[in-house]
């Protein structure tokens, strides 16, 4: 069964607060100037915050190098909404699967990401439709068109994970099985451009998406794709803006959308983004369409500010998290090496066991999406994806680092402590002057190893919208479809960073010329 992330457990007090805030604005509206329109409760402090996954052109995507500023039909609509409510627009970009949890955690006012209006989503969130669409099955140019969904029986079909298409394909599969036919083999991918790529490289027979995006891809890929089937499914007719359940807010948003439709704004935007243009003539420029490896695209990615910025975020997150993790882990390791049992020791053992056992991705999602439901302070603006990632990775890494430090400290001959205390050195000096320098050398290679792992683990943080190197790469690939070139550029960045730290490790190790092997030999003599 497809996973369903969308049913957020709802806290009644959320609603209560929402109602109180709503009433407050109602009161404010009535007291204020006569013509001032009522503000929806999701506009906070004059800011309208939307969550979007900018890998769905032309609805929401990154056109240029700056991945923090997506563009598209949805973003333009959001701008008009913000203007209408005299608010500033703030756009948070993240993986598709993170959108609804973020809305539930009150991180954003609205989700605007080219999402289909479906009854199942409306059980948890309110929706306001703003654009017609249809579910479409697409394949490679030479694939013959289909007459019904049943013809997909037994074929490989790609789809973006977390989307309603996954659920829909499940329903179709159930029907196929009930009719004694083989079900479709469904492959789920986290981003839309990967879904398209599966068709282009021939791994799957077809993919499922909606018409607006496929029109764009058809132009972008210059006729390499075509529509196999447009089944009429009643549940799949509109794109909707989603908000937390609040009838008054929904009504205000509906009014605003209707106004934009009436005054022709939406029509202008549809034209601007070629929402319904099915021609493949007027193609946007693509780079990798002709050659196997486009060196120009590769070098422009390598030297782009977007990649550099992503790499710096990756590096900063890894360095900060590891420094905090080491600082936490040393006292914990010392406490755990104490042979006496104590409550503190049991608690620390529990901490280490818990954070070694729980998957890092789950910890990230927990801190970003679950914790704010219990501690509202974590949904305020200062708690950025960067901070959340550093927090999650520091805690996670400290648990691993405790084990490294514990073994390094135990590997120092107990005679060293004896010898140092016989000389009258204080506890502090015994640790800092005698034990730590020796434990440091033992701990160094596994610690650098951990750091390299951590540097690569930061890529998980794209799920909570951190714009690190891999997230930047994915967003840029969605724009250009230059998979090989952009992946290669990301690889170069990772390799350069890792090799630099390996080089550093060699240099530091060489400074410690006293080697244990020689020591054992001389002792045995």
């Amino acid at each position: 069964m497809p996973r369903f992330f969308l049913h957020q457990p709802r806290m009644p007090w959320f609603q209560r607060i929402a109602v109180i805030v709503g009433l407050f604005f109602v009161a404010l509206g009535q007291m204020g100037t006569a013509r001032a329109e009522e503000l929806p409760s999701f506009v906070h402090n004059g800011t309208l915050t939307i969550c979007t996954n900018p890998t769905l052109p032309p609805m929401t995507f990154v056109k240029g190098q700056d991945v923090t500023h997506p563009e598209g039909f949805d973003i333009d609509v959001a701008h008009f909404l913000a203007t209408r409510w005299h608010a500033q627009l703030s756009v948070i970009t993240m993986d598709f699967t993170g959108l609804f949890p973020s809305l539930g955690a009150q991180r954003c006012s609205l989700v605007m990401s080219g999402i289909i209006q479906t009854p199942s989503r409306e059980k948890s969130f309110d929706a306001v439709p703003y654009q017609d669409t249809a579910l479409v099955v697409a394949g490679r140019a030479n694939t013959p068109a289909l007459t019904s969904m049943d013809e997909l029986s037994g074929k490989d079909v790609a789809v973006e994970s977390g989307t309603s298409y996954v659920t829909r394909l499940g329903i179709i599969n159930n029907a196929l099985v009930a009719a004694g036919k083989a079900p479709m083999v469904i492959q789920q991918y986290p981003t839309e451009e990967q879904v398209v790529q599966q068709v282009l490289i021939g791994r799957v027979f077809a993919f499922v998406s909606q018409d607006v995006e496929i029109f764009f891809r058809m132009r972008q890929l210059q006729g390499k794709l075509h529509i196999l089937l447009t089944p009429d499914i009643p549940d799949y007719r509109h794109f909707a803006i989603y908000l937390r359940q609040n009838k008054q807010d929904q009504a205000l948003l509906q009014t605003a959308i209707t106004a934009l439709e009436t005054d022709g704004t939406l029509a202008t935007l549809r034209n601007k983004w070629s929402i319904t243009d099915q021609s493949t003539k007027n193609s946007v420029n693509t780079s990798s369409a002709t050659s196997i490896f486009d060196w120009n695209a590769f070098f422009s990615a390598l030297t782009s500010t977007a990649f550099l910025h992503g790499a710096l975020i990756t590096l900063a997150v890894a360095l900060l998290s590891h420094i905090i993790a080491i600082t936490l882990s040393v006292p914990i390791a010392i406490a755990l090496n104490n042979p006496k049992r104590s409550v503190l020791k049991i608690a620390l053992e529990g901490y280490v066991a818990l954070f070694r056992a729980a998957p890092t991705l789950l910890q990230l999602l927990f801190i970003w999406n679950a914790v704010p439901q219990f501690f509202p302070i974590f949904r305020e603006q200062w708690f950025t994806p960067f901070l959340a990632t550093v927090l999650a990775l520091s805690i996670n890494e400290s648990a691993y680092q405790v084990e490294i430090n514990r073994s390094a400290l135990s590997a120092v001959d107990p005679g060293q402590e004896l010898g140092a205390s016989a000389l009258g050195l204080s506890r502090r000096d015994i640790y800092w002057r005698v034990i730590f320098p020796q434990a440091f050398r033992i701990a160094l290679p596994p610690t650098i190893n951990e750091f390299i792992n951590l540097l690569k683990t930061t890529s998980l943080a794209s799920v909570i919208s951190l714009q690190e190197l891999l997230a930047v790469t994915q967003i840029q690939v969605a724009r250009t479809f230059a998979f090989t070139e952009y992946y290669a550029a990301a690889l170069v960045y990772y390799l350069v960073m890792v090799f630099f730290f390996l080089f550093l490790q060699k240099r530091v190790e060489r400074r410690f010329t006293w080697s244990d092997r020689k020591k054992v030999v001389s002792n045995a003599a």
Partner: protein
Amino acid sequence: MQHESTATSMISVRGMSKLFGDFVALDRLNFDVKKGEKIVILGPSGSGKSTLIRTLNRIEPHDSGTLTINGKLITDKTDPIQLRCMVGMVFQNYNLFPHLSVLENCILAPMRVRGMTRIEATDLARRYLNQVGIPDQADKYPIQLSGGQQQRVAIARALCMQPEVMLFDEPTAALDPEAIVGVVSIIDELAEQGITTVCVTHEMAFSRRIADHIIFMDQGKILEITPPETFFTSPQTGRAQNFLNQMLRY
């Protein structure tokens, strides 16, 4: 036998016991060491010799009885740093700091504990490294030295704290015969200079030569405290007799 504490007594032990769980490691010991006196502790393995010497600088705190060093009653309230400035110790396995050079091994404690400047501490260290016969090894690391040389560094390192008492815990047990001669002659020399010395060893000839008194222990108890001539020629207890027979046969 010197059970009376006198004004000249450097170490005075009264009814001192040490337990490890239920095991009695030291059983109500009594003895005195006068200032400048040399004591050698002999006894079979597991008799409590090393435990005894470690209680004298409180690396192993005793459980009952009293310990007085240089007139100060040593309890769990005593500043261990003050105590260890008075009592230096040399271990069987040297316990040199492998990440520090010979000179740095010697100057660390004088600088950090005694508050000497690097220049003062270095002067002092060079003097003692000279005394133990390895003035030219100051800049090497411990692993670059032989076992005998490492033990000489350990002795110099302890002396740099200018202690009143030196404790040696089987200082030659890890050395080859040639190195033993060198290390023993250094301890001989120190003893002649009048520093109070307590030494656990299995070197019989050396014990006989330097000891003012032999303490013979077995099963956590002191069985004899006698001058070496008496101990080696006419031991008073059967167990000491047995011990000597075994040592001589070996």
